[in-house]
């Protein structure tokens, strides 16, 4: 019996299959999870959408007051800080329900309207 096992390759495919499955499980499944998580995270798309919103707000040139507005799944927060003859206009975009985690913050210093 031992001789048979050694001399031929009977059962080799089982070992081989087990090894293959182990590799499959240890490599591909985490990889799959990683890729899925990365793709579903859509950070790039979120960032782009947030930047578009922030830029649109910056370009409204409505610098009268601080405020907050909701756009789809984002909250756009505007702040004004007076700096002598200038003011800093700051736009922060966060996800709804996550006000402490800004996706993007844009700010620029402009001259106070005469």
């Amino acid at each position: 019996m031992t001789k048979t096992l050694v001399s031929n390759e009977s059962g080799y495919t089982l070992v081989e299959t087990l090894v293959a499955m182990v590799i499959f499980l240890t490599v591909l499944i985490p990889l799959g999870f990683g890729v899925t998580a990365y793709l579903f995270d859509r950070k790039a798309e979120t960032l782009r959408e947030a930047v578009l919103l922030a830029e649109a707000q910056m370009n409204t040139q409505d610098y009268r007051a601080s405020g907050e507005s909701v756009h789809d799944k984002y909250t756009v927060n505007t702040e004004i800080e007076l700096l002598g003859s200038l003011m800093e206009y700051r736009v922060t975009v966060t996800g709804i329900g996550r006000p402490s985690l800004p996706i993007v913050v844009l700010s620029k210093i402009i001259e106070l309207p005469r």
Partner: protein
Amino acid sequence: MDGSERGIRGFRDGSGLRRIGKSEEGYALPSILMLVTILSLVAFSVLSLEYLERKSAMLDVARIKAEYAAQSGVQCMAAELDSSARCDSAREFMFYDGCRASVRVIPWGALYLVTSTGYSAKVQSIRRATLAAGPGEAFSLALALGNTSHQLVFTGNSSITGDVAVGPGGVSTGQLHGYSTPTVVPIQGHVTNLAAQSFPKIDLDRIHFIGNYYRNLLRNSSHTSALETSGIVSLRAISDSLGSLVIPPGTALSDSIARPDEPLYIYCSGNVAIGSNSRLIGMVSVVCSDSILIASGAVVSGCVFVSMKGIRTESTSLASTQLISPRIVLGPGCRASYPCIAYSIQLDPAQATSQTLLIAQGATFEGFAGLVSPRGDDALEIASGSRVKGAVFSSSRLTMDGDLVGSALAADLFFYEAPTSYFGWMRSGSINRVSLPKGLLIAPTFEGKHQLSVLEWL
């Protein structure tokens, strides 16, 4: 060993697998490895793509932030400087979001040119702008007549819409041969005593600074590359990397040049002509020791012309252009659109000449027209049939025969009608301060600390 002996042990009937094992012995591991490799490659590609996309999005954000940092740098520098600033300076500004701006300011004609480089992460963005001064309280008037010993006299169809400040002599109408006499004083606005308004004083140190600056540039131009050939020089032949160039006297510049990024200084120790139909766009400065002619059909935008003797324009199109010289003539058909500056000042006190600034019949001018002269007989003339929008200042005489939408401050009003010179009179001009849009900026050459603002983003 035949194929029937192989197969997976423990299966009662391994006939099916045996058949596979028979022909595909040991294939499972390589095939799985191959599958793993392929899937890994696919996953790697997807992850790389997503990573690059994320990186690109972050780069876009950095680019936008750098752009805002550059703009903010310009505004910070404008707030930090004031109209009394003299020389080149550089500053660094840090901002709330971690961005920074490195800002440099240099004289640009009668204005300042600011170059601001904004940095965010590893991205940088450059913005340039010209700075000018707010006009101050005096320019809220339609007319301020500096010579308080003269009465303001209206004749013909002259009129003023807006407030007027004059001396104790006040305002009246007068008779002049060949002109109708107004039945009432044609002022729609308040008339106040000039003492209550105070006539603005010119910052002579700044005027001298401008003169010195351009004289020094001309003097030091011998170190820059020179063109040996005179005659007609094609502007197309000037490479983008060239910062300054000396041209021989009598040169005519032809064709077109655009300098949106780096200034180009063209020096000449004689006359220069900007040829017909040539185009000079962007940051081009022409500095010459004699006179400059801008010929008919030329298009000029954003440039500075400085001449120690005189500048004459024919029927040309100017935009955002500065003309600085003791004698300036904007000829018939010349269209100078906002924000232009025509400034008659004495650039070289050692070779003082008589000064004049003429906006001829049929010319239009938008911006700031000024004449600063130590002599009382030099004149800024807005000829009949010309149209000016903006601010007009003369430390000497002003002949106000054209139409002005804006403000005129003059030491004296003057015209000559043979055989008499009339002081304090207006015969055919109109001044309308009410119709001037807000936001006018002027050359920062008046005494006092006037806040600088961005005149134009370049």
